[in-house]
């Protein structure tokens, strides 16, 4: 399986149009992130992909060919639902064993997955005694149990502590490197920023933008944030600030605690470097920050209002 796509999908719940002709796809070896405000249609899109919601129009495509969400397709899927829950009176191992039996997976794989998500020690405890993070890790384990070609994770970072996040990152890396696909729906753009290949931004059931973070950064054309660590000599620092104002009027954002912050369009970085070069004694450090995915998200959402 090289590509899974949803084409021209329309979903209406009564008078509410949840998806209005959406086109999205995931390709092998990439992690695709669905983002958008509440009610944007992220979860509905995932549920269409899982066959849990029947669209009024549109269809699923596998490798460019129209395909039904049948049992053969479902065998290629692994799914972590949002706020995952399990039968409270079963142990973690019993939960995984049920899904293993259902998917024809060996008990050895169950143990390996429990180890992978760091739940071996709690495998014999009833789920009712699990913390939110442990349940989420159990859900992650369940989603990868059958080593699916397409992994669908709905809000996977919810409740995860740092160790849990490390498990999640390792799963994303493994799936990408193995040439499989991952579709993630999340609000945690900052956490996922460096771990996704493409971002699909949804708003009111429509795709606002769908591209790599780099391309979206270019599209948004948001300014870079440059922070200079200044020398203790106040005169030198003042000279440098004046030179910045002269070269890039209005770019200076503030001066605080020996640091000068400037925001410039990507094209303004070279003149700023020149100013820095001519005031080498006044500047001790320089840090350039690209706009985060969360800022791009905010900008693009506002841009289409």
């Amino acid at each position, binding site marked *: 399986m090289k590509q899974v796509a949803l084409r021209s999908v329309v979903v209406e719940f009564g008078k509410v149009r949840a998806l209005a002709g959406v086109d999205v796809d995931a390709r092998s070896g990439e992690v695709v992130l669905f983002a958008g405000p509440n009610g944007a249609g992220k979860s509905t899109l995932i549920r269409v992909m899982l066959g*849990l919601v029947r669209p009024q129009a549109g269809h699923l495509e596998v490798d460019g060919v129209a395909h039904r969400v049948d049992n053969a397709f*479902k065998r290629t899927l692994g*799914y972590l639902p949002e706020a995952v829950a399990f039968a409270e009176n*079963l142990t973690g191992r019993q939960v995984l064993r*049920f899904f293993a039996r259902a*998917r*024809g997976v060996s008990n050895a794989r169950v143990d390996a997955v429990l180890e992978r998500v760091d739940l071996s020690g709690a495998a014999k405890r009833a789920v009712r005694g699990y913390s939110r993070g442990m349940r989420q890790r159990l859900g992650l384990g369940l989603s990868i149990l059958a080593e699916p070609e397409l992994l669908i994770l709905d809000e996977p970072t919810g409740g995860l502590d740092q160790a849990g996040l490390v498990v999640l990152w390792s799963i994303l890396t493994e799936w990408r490197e193995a040439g499989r696909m991952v579709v993630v729906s999340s609000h945690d753009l900052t956490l996922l920023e460096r771990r996704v290949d493409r971002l699909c931004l949804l708003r009111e059931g429509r795709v606002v933008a769908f591209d790599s973070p780099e391309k979206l950064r270019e599209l948004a054309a948001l300014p870079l944030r440059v922070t200079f660590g200044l020398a203790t000599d106040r005169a030198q620092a003042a000279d440098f600030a004046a030179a910045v104002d002269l070269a890039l009027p209005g770019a200076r954002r503030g001066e605080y605690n020996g640091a000068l912050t400037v925001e410039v369009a990507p094209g303004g970085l070279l003149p700023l470097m020149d100013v820095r070069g001519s005031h080498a004694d006044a500047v001790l450090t320089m840090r350039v920050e690209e706009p985060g995915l969360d800022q791009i998200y905010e900008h693009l959402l506002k841009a289409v209002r």
Partner: protein
Amino acid sequence: MGRVGLALILHELVERTRDRWVLVISVLFALLAAGVSLYGRSAEADSAMLTGPSLVTLAGLLVPLVALVLGHDAICGERERNTLGLLLSLPVGKLEVVLAKFLGRLLALVLAVGMGLGVAIVLAGEGQGAVLAKLLVPALLLGAAFLSVGVLISAGSERQATATSLVVAIWFLMVFFYDMGLLGLLVATDGQISQETIGWMTFVNPAGLFRVDMMSRFSGPEVLESLGMVVAVPGAGVRAALWTGWIAVPLALSGLLLVRARGTR
């Protein structure tokens, strides 16, 4: 039944045997059945004549309750826990999910009823135990019918609390007050509804069919006449059709509700 369905049957059985409400009602049934059996054994009269009808009454009350409790959260419990989507993301059809949930819970019901009646049969002694064993299959049919109704209520309910209220109401209506309701209907209509119709209305309720059928078997048809039943217990074919209907129709409707739902959480 595919791999997922079979796994689900086992999963349901394991989960139900850990359900404290099912355990409480099952143990209560077993204790009461044991008490009835011991009392019958100590009586001087034919113990099966005494124990049988008492067990029929007891099973007629408690088996539907166990079954409804077993079935009430089959679908809406998953829906409320947000796990129905996870289950349906497996390579399995919605109808198979309904059937597997029913069968898994039916196995748990077999254990509960088997334990209750089994204790009574063992305690009744060798000769009488064989007579009481006649109760087993009809009691399981009764349980299966109410389990199917419980699953239907579950499939039609968004929340578990709603399903709980509905199964309690159904139990009171179909098991507890049904006969009184029919009597009230007879009096209220001043005989415009014939006793024959009332008789058939008794049989179309699985609780009524079980009770009348078993009373007739234990105490003879003359007992029914003395109770004012002017209609004979239906033949085996009609009884089989009634039981099949009560088990299959609610189950089919449950599947239909799930299949027709446009979205699944």
